[in-house]
Every structure is written in C-alpha cells, then in structure tokens.
C-alpha cells in the first residue's frame, strides 16, 4: 500500500511535468494544426541556459525567471524566422523543418555544453517536507506546475490578449477582420509554449540529469498525454499528463518493470491514434472530401 501511494504521488509529480509539456504541444497545435516535434529540445535548450546562469552564480529563482523569459523570446524568434515560411507548405516540408529544428537545438547544446551529464539543482530542500511518500522536489514540482497552469488559464480566460489569441487560433480570417495581427498571435503562442516547456525542463532536470538527450522520453510521454486528452484540448492535455504520469509509474512498478516504461507511451500513442484519435475530450476532425 505504501509503495502504491508512493508511486501514485511520484507519478503525479512527473505527470505535472508531462502535463506542462503536453499543454505546450496543444497550444501550438490549436493555433497551427502542427505537431511540434522540437518541443522537447526547446525545453532542454532553455534548461541548459538556466544551468549556465546558475553555474555563473545567479541564484535559483532569478535564474528561473530569466530562463522563462529567454525561452519565450526564443520561441517567438523561431516562429517568426523558421516556421513562418513553411506555414502553408505541404506536410512533409513542415515535418522536415521541425526535425531540423530538433537536430539543430540538440547539436548546438551538445556543442556549447558538451555531452557529459550534468547535475541540475532543485530549489526545494533535500529533506522531505511534504510527508514520507514524496520527495520535496516532487512536491515542489507539482506546486510549480499547478501555478504555471493556473496563470495560463487566467491569462487565456480573462485577458483581452488571451481572448485575441484564442480567437486567432480558432478563426484567423475573422480575427484579421477585427484587427488582430494573427501572425504575431502565433509567435506569442510559440513564445508561451516555449516558456512553459522551459519550466517543465527545469523541473525534470534534477530527476533525469541534464544532457542534450534528456527530453526524448519526456517528449514521448507528453505526446501520449496530449493525444489521450485530445490534441486540441488544453484541459485534456493537463488531465492526460497526470494520467500518463501515474499510469507509467504504476505499470512500471507493479506490472511490466521499469525497462519497458517507455513502451507504455508508445502503446498509448499508437492505441489512441488508431482507436480514438480525438482522445477523451477532443473534437473529432472530419476531413471534407
């Protein structure tokens, strides 16, 4: 029973991280109908930025905020410079561009920081302060994730800019007709997605250690989470994230062993895509012939 509770809580902690990354994926999908294969590498790159700040003596939380800002700017730049030219290009071209982005970010990180594994600090204390079933970092990660998700919700629901972004994503033509600069809304969306990804990266790095390939598995879980919840549904992505996190831990601890945990993500992804592509909460997309 103890172990069960422990796994569930740890699963909620990693689930929160998956939820954040899944949310970033859904945000970009909603606005562009594109799957951002490079989301993980963006998060990794931002985390390395945080690492260099901390390594240079900047205290954790200021470094955290600076990194969020850095990730935001990076996301905006990438959308404007690299993604915009292929907005309306055939699918293969878009996929290739995303893969190119993945590869470039990965190799630049490797070039600047080398491939040796580094430790990344956690802002939360060593001793468990949330009880015996969960490390402080795991508890803290859940807290940080919830705060980020709440802020995003408030932004989109209650601010004019958030409303404009939602409008631009749903109906770009009408959005233009009310004077919304749709191009910049997309860039903003990318910026926010990158920033959220950066937070996810900084929360997961203390657990999996920092190296250029650290986000591969995490990204896979995030894809699974986004698909399970419905690739065009932000709330679904969050739900999916926590569900996948808990499922991964429970299956890994009690059913299939830790080695095959990643296979859980694979099975979920293929399963959802083949059986119910719209996930739990998404809308069924009907293609007109």
């Amino acid at each position, binding site marked *: 029973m103890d172990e069960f509770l422990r796994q569930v809580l740890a699963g909620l902690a990693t689930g929160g991280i998956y939820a954040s990354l899944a949310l970033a994926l859904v945000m970009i999908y909603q606005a562009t109908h594109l799957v951002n294969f490079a989301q993980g590498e963006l998060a990794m790159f931002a985390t390395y930025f945080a690492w260099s700040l901390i390594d240079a003596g900047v205290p954790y939380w200021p470094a955290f905020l600076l990194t969020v800002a850095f990730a935001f700017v990076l996301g905006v730049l990438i959308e404007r410079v690299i993604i915009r030219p292929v907005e309306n290009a055939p699918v293969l071209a878009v996929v290739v561009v995303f893969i190119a982005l993945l590869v470039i970010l990965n190799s630049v990180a490797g070039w600047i920081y080398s491939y040796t594994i580094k430790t990344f600090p956690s802002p939360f204390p060593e001793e468990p302060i949330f009880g015996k079933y969960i490390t402080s970092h795991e508890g803290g990660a859940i807290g940080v994730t919830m705060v980020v998700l709440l802020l995003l919700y408030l932004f989109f629901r209650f601010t004019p800019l958030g*409303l404009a972004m939602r409008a631009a994503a749903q*109906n770009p*033509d*009408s959005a233009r*007709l009310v004077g*919304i600069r749709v191009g910049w809304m997309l860039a903003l969306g990318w910026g926010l997605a990158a920033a959220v990804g950066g937070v996810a990266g900084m929360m997961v790095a203390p657990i999996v250690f920092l190296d250029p390939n650290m986000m591969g598995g995490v990204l896979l879980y995030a894809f699974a989470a986004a698909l399970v919840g419905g690739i065009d549904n932000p709330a679904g992505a969050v739900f999916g994230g926590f569900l996948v996190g808990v499922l991964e831990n429970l299956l890994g601890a009690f059913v299939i062993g830790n080695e095959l945990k990643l296979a859980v993500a694979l099975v979920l992804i293929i399963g959802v895509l083949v059986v119910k592509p719209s996930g739990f909460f998404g809308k069924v997309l009907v293609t007109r012939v």
Partner: protein
Amino acid sequence: MAALLQVSGLHASYGPTRVLHGIDFAMDEGTITTLLGANGAGKTTTLRALCGMVKTQGEVKFDGERIDGKPTENIVRKGIAHVPDGRGTFVNVTTEENLRLGAYTRKDRHAVESDLERVYGYFPRLKERREQQAGTLSGGEQQMLAVSRALMLRPRLMLLDEPSFGLAPLIVQELFEILRTVNEKEKVSMLVVEQNAAMALELADHAYVIETGRVVLSGTAAEIKSNDAVRRSYLGY
C-alpha cells in the same frame, strides 16, 4: 467633397483565375450603397478585395489614402468593418466575447462599454444570450452578432456581405431597419452586397450592378429600381 471610398480599375484574382476585371465605383460618407449581381458576379470578391483578403491590382482609396495592397489588420484599423458572408462568428467563445473582440483595436475603454450597451439596445436578443457560446446561436442571431461585432469597431465604413442570406424575411426587415437607423444616427457609411435586390434597393441610396467582374450599371437606388433590365433580371417583374 471627396468620396469616402474611391475604387479605380480594381482587378482581383484567386490564384491564376481573374475574377474582377476593372471595377470602378465611389461612395460618399454617410451613404448606403448596394452592390447587386447574380451568383459568381464578383460581389463578395469586391468586398474581400477592399479588405486586402485577395490579391489585387488597381487603386482603392479610403478617405483619400490608398489602402490597396495593405494587410487586412491594418485596413481594419483605419475604420473599415467587414461583416463577411458566413458571418465569421468565433464559435467557441461567448456572445459578449465576440463583441469585445470587435472592439479589440480600440483604446477608449469607457466608450467601448457604452457601445456595448448601445448594441444590446439594438439587439436585445443578444443581451439575453451574452454568456452563451456563440456557436449555439441561431442563424439570425449570429447575423445580428456579426453586425454588432462590426459596430463595436466604431467604423466609418461597414462592408456587409449578403446580410439577408438564410434569414426569414421578417428578420431581414428588422435587421435592415436597424442598419438604416445606425446609418442615420451614427453616420456609419455602408456598402452592402446583396442577392436580395428588392430589399437592398429599399435600404440603399445608391446602387451598382456587377456582372462577371465588371460594373455594368450604376445610379441612385430609385433609378436602378425603375430600370427595365434590372427589373426583369433581378426583381422578377
């Protein structure tokens, strides 16, 4: 007095297909003009061309300033509101959010609030449904919403694309009366594209008839109404 809207030699294409072959017309401030014509004549394309939504050649001057070739968002900010065919409702947000989006580019917050009340005054049914998802509104209500959203811009010129489409005649009557009121009280100029020629000619001051991408007839509404060719082709008697 210079015309509010001056269009000269407007050509427009969808990709390689040329749809407008040199449209010329003008509108004075404070007037209602209607563009008549059969399906496929190029009426909708004309409105979209004015808003920069299709590739164009030729000149479009709004209040003396050239707006051809400019991006839609910028044209809108000059005070031109377009009510598109199909209404262009933001279906996944509420009625009121749709209206607030109409005022997105405005900085005068108090005036926006009073405009909101005024628009609810024209269309009380929208006020009843203000928190409802706009996609659940009926066709007529969505048309009212689309017009209201355009009004929230406090436009100088409103472009309306087939506002009567799919609406019951009584509702069209109601809508056109409100348009007439808005035009008289708030001096909003209107360019109305319509297939329903009879009602459009009741509403408008001037009219142009478009056929296969060219203006073939122009005059006051009264002149056009009594024109034999128009009566036979578009008014059915």
